[in-house]
């Protein structure tokens, strides 16, 4: 009985940790899904831009001793600028129907940003300041990291603001109009390129916050994080349903918990295998994800 109780506590603790850490995946996944929802294209450079923003925030911390709130602000603004630049370089001039070219251009963007970071930092890991890093709630046999609760709350607030922008503002209306039918939107006087570029910038803000949150949660910032976060972000966006923001949030938390449980039971060698298997299962049996609808863009 004691063993069962111990195992129960361990598993629920593992799930809790995974859910909390999954909020960083959710934020990255929301960025992927937002851009896909707006343009019907995957921006593979999104996580790289998010971490690029986090590096800019860290530079602010090191160079001007910026307070933590400002570090997160700098990260968000820098990632927004990077997001806009990615739109301009990888999407703006590529014909709308050439999805492969845009995809490959954004893959190039991913590696370019990553290599710039590597060259500037020589690939060295750098300490990233943590908010509430020393806060640790102990509730009976459970322990909950204060910084991950903070990430979770910030994730919820960021997503709430994003949903407000999308559904309660003229910009959001324009974004949704372009996403549904860009020709009709253009005929209504909506600037498709300006709307898309603003969408990339907004997604960048979210990415910058996600990148800074992830770095703060790990406590270290390194280029080795880029590719795993890109993969997790795409998996989250697909499982949640490409284009669905609530889907990305739920899928992010779900993937975080799922991978932690498999790490606990099956170990590091098999953990990612199960996560990718989950992606395949969704692609085969529920290709539109948890909340996605069939793609209706013309």
């Amino acid at each position, binding site marked *: 009985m004691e063993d069962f109780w111990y195992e129960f506590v361990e598993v629920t603790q593992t799930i809790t940790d995974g859910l909390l850490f999954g909020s960083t995946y959710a934020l990255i996944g929301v960025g992927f899904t937002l851009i896909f929802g707006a343009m019907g294209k995957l921006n593979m450079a999104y996580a790289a831009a998010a971490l690029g923003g986090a590096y800019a925030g860290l530079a602010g911390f090191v160079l001007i001793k910026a307070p933590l709130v400002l570090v997160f602000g700098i990260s968000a603004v820098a990632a927004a600028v990077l997001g806009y630049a990615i739109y301009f370089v990888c999407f703006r001039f590529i014909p709308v129907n050439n999805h492969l070219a845009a995809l490959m251009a954004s893959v190039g963007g991913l590696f370019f940003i990553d290599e710039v970071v590597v060259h500037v930092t020589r690939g060295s*890991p750098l300490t990233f300041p943590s908010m509430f*890093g020393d806060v640790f709630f102990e509730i009976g046999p459970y322990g909950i990291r204060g910084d991950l609760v903070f990430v979770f709350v910030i994730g919820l607030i960021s997503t709430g603001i994003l949903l407000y922008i999308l559904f309660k503002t003229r910009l959001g209306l324009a974004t949704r109009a372009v996403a549904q039918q860009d020709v009709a939107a253009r005929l209504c006087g909506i600037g498709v390129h300006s709307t898309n570029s603003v969408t990339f910038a907004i997604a960048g803000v979210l990415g910058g916050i996600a990148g800074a949150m992830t770095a703060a949660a790990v406590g270290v910032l390194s280029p080795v*994080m880029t590719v795993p976060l890109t993969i997790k972000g795409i998996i989250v966006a697909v499982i949640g349903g490409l284009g669905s923001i609530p889907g990305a949030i739920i899928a992010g938390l779900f993937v975080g918990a799922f991978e932690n449980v498999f790490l606990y039971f099956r170990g*590091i060698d098999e953990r990612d295998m199960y996560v990718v298997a989950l992606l395949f299962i969704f692609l085969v049996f529920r290709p539109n994800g948890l909340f996605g609808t069939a793609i209706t863009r013309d």
Partner: protein
Amino acid sequence: MKRLFKGVSVGLLGCALMFSALTSSADRSVKVLGWGAQSGPLKSFGVNSETALRSAVAEINAAGGVKLGDGTMVPIEVIGYEDSACKKDQNIAILRKTASTTDAIVAMGTTCSGACQAMFGVLQKKVGDASDSGLQMPMLADTCIRPGLAKISEWAFRNVPNEIDMYDALFAWLSQQHPGIKTFSGGTETDQGHSFITHTKVIVQAAIRHGFEWVGPAVPELGPKVGQGAKELQAATKTQHWLMGDTNYSVQARKIKKQNPDMVLVSSHPFSACGFLKEMKRQRVKPKLLVGLTSSASQETLNGCMKEAEGIIIPTGFAPITPAAQKANEIVSKAGGFLDLHSAAAWENAYLVKAAVEAAGISANPDNLAEDRAKFRNALAGITAAEGLIGPVTRNAEGEASKPYVYVQVVDGKWKVIHDPRG
């Protein structure tokens, strides 16, 4: 008029030949080509090795260069330092290109053990074996540290510390210095060959050999011999390991917390070592002692987690403890690099090249390239002892080095030498 024309022609031809001979003598140099990670997350390793190699070569050249077989003094020329990015295919491609399209007499580098293993495999296994069409190119490695790689080819030589000896001596010393420490556990990054192999085959067994008790998942096959029970250990401990790019270490830290070991092994490169150390701190895991991987005895660890790494002990093949090491450290620092156990080997390798060239009596003439490479290889194989930066370096018949080492510890945010086993 005809005679005059002939005379002038012959004179001009003679002048041309003489000028050509003079020019070729003045242009002669011993060419070497290096490579390592110049991109990707392990870039710092390649950059530091390149800086150390070029700095040492500059020192040698400033002192007159190297003496060829005909007595001429010529400089060593680093004709390039390629980016192998720690990728096996890229390493092999660079090695093939170096062997077939350059005048380099020796290839130097490279960063990762897995890449070295793959690359050594395309070299001729045994010198003079006509049935083996492998590349006949001397390769002198500085960083790839996983035990036992040089025996893959007689053309491969390594100047890397012997981790089996280092950890054996470290735990022997720790058992004397810290008699209160009885138990241990730990984790590693499974996607990095050096970390994973060294942890599961070398470090754990060395700790057991010196009386420490493994309190991780039960592995009855574990024992004191190198590699004993390694497969079973790998299988049993897979839930307390991680990957180099991981961002969440909560499960692993909790597992180790539950085992409550006196000593924790963090057999990992700086990024994931720092991530894991930070997670241990968050979860209030407070072992009495931390022991790290040789490759983490570097500036990167201090950049990533100076506070959390406080107290960690690591054996290393370099520390500025001798006048030669201090001088080299100063020169490389001024050149923008950082001398650690890997890049220090790149510095030493430049002097090994000088010694081998002078012992081989090579011509440095591109027409004799294959012969020069073979002579150089034989001379390098014959150098079984040389003076390294912190003491004598010896090499066995398999091309593996035995280097002096010291134990360093992070004290007040800096690496400090806490013990020299040589007394």
